[in-house]
């Protein structure tokens, strides 16, 4: 189980790197799809609350370090997000298009709302007010667009590689 968490965390780490290093450069519109959120969504559906919120916490912590945000703010956001995403496990059967798109759309809104609430509660200086700006619209669009692809890709990887390792599958 610990190994599985480690692999998921590693994947998330790679996603952060890819997103910050490549996608941010490729897309010059000032906005990019929140792939790590999509991955956490997928993870929540696959693994449930407990692992997803822990991975969310760790990756949020890592994200804060990476982006120079106040330590803990992304941990808070992604922990709660992991918990909520994990609620979906076993509750309904998802399709590869509609479910990811809608949830990814809502996830981006959740992310910004919670960030703003936390900034307000902790009286932190906001660097940029992204809500009600064109960036949010673009991120909503890109994230919704990319979500089905990430879902299909993640499921495919899991089915093809992860299952072949018994140890990795072990809980």
């Amino acid at each position, binding site marked *: 189980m610990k190994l599985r968490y480690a692999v998921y965390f590693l994947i998330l780490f790679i996603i952060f790197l890819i997103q910050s290093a490549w996608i941010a450069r490729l897309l010059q519109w000032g906005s990019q799809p929140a792939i790590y959120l999509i991955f956490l969504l997928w993870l929540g559906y696959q693994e449930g609350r407990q692992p997803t919120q822990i991975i969310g916490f760790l990756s949020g*912590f890592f994200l804060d370090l990476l982006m120079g945000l106040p330590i803990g703010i992304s941990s808070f956001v992604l922990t709660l997000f992991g918990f909520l995403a994990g609620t979906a496990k076993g509750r309904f059967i998802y399709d590869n298009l509609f479910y990811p798109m809608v949830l990814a759309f809502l996830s981006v809104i959740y992310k910004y709302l919670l960030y703003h609430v936390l900034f307000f509660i902790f009286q932190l200086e906001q660097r940029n007010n992204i809500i009600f700006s064109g960036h949010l619209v673009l991120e909503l669009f890109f994230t919704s667009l990319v979500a089905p692809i990430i879902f299909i890709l993640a499921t495919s990887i899991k089915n093809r590689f992860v299952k072949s390792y018994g140890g990795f599958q072990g809980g």
Partner: protein
Amino acid sequence: MKSSFLSQWARNNIQTLTLVSLLLISSTSIYLSGQSRLVTPAQIGVSVLGLGQEILTNIYSGITGFLGSVQEISDLRAKYQELQSQFQEYQGFERQFAELRAENQRLREQLKFMESQTSTLIPAIIIAKDPSNITKTIIINRGHLHGIRKNDAIIAYQGKDYGLVGRVIEVGFTSSQVQTVLDPGNFVAARFQKSRYEGLIVGLGAGKEMMRMLYIRKQAKDDFQEGDLIITSGNNSLYPRGIPLGRVQHITEKMYETNLEIDVTPVVDFSRLEYVFVVQEREG
């Protein structure tokens, strides 16, 4: 007993406990790392109240804005129609101005020409043309009142040339009827400006803005060519001598005729004729 109940509860709610713990850790981290201070209850109150006030204000602004917009659209429509009518009026002024400017230019040219002539020239405007296009007559706005007499010659100045238009055949009190040189009933004594051969010019009438020169003998055909200018000879005393009539366009030589048929293009472009001069030879 109590501790076993708590441990049982913790086991059952491990996910919630984990969540609360992680959120607490995160919150503490934020508080410590950002050197931040927590929001006070007053700030929350102000924020909640402010949010409510903002919502209400937005609703009020929305309603008043909507009603205002309706009124504004109505005002704008009225303003638009007013501006549109003004614009059309100005367009009319502009066209009128352009027309007046062009007319002014034409009149200046006419005046300049008039001043350069030795004969007395009475300027006139064509006020009517024969609508049937049969007789090739025109009506000018000068008559007995202006000293116009029957058989007075009419000339016109166009561009840099002037030429014969016709003669007055009827004089009214303030208008006169003019028989143009294009009319088949109008004969003008004419001659070649260079070769000085004489003949008669007659209009070809309906539908043709052409004239024909008659009574030029075949022997003379080598002495002129197409493009040569034909002027009035003054021999029949109806027209002053030396007024340009037209230019040779085509020469026809028929075997059974002793004379040539010479088609002549008038110097004056009758299709755009507006102003003319009535020529009166100065006495003495």
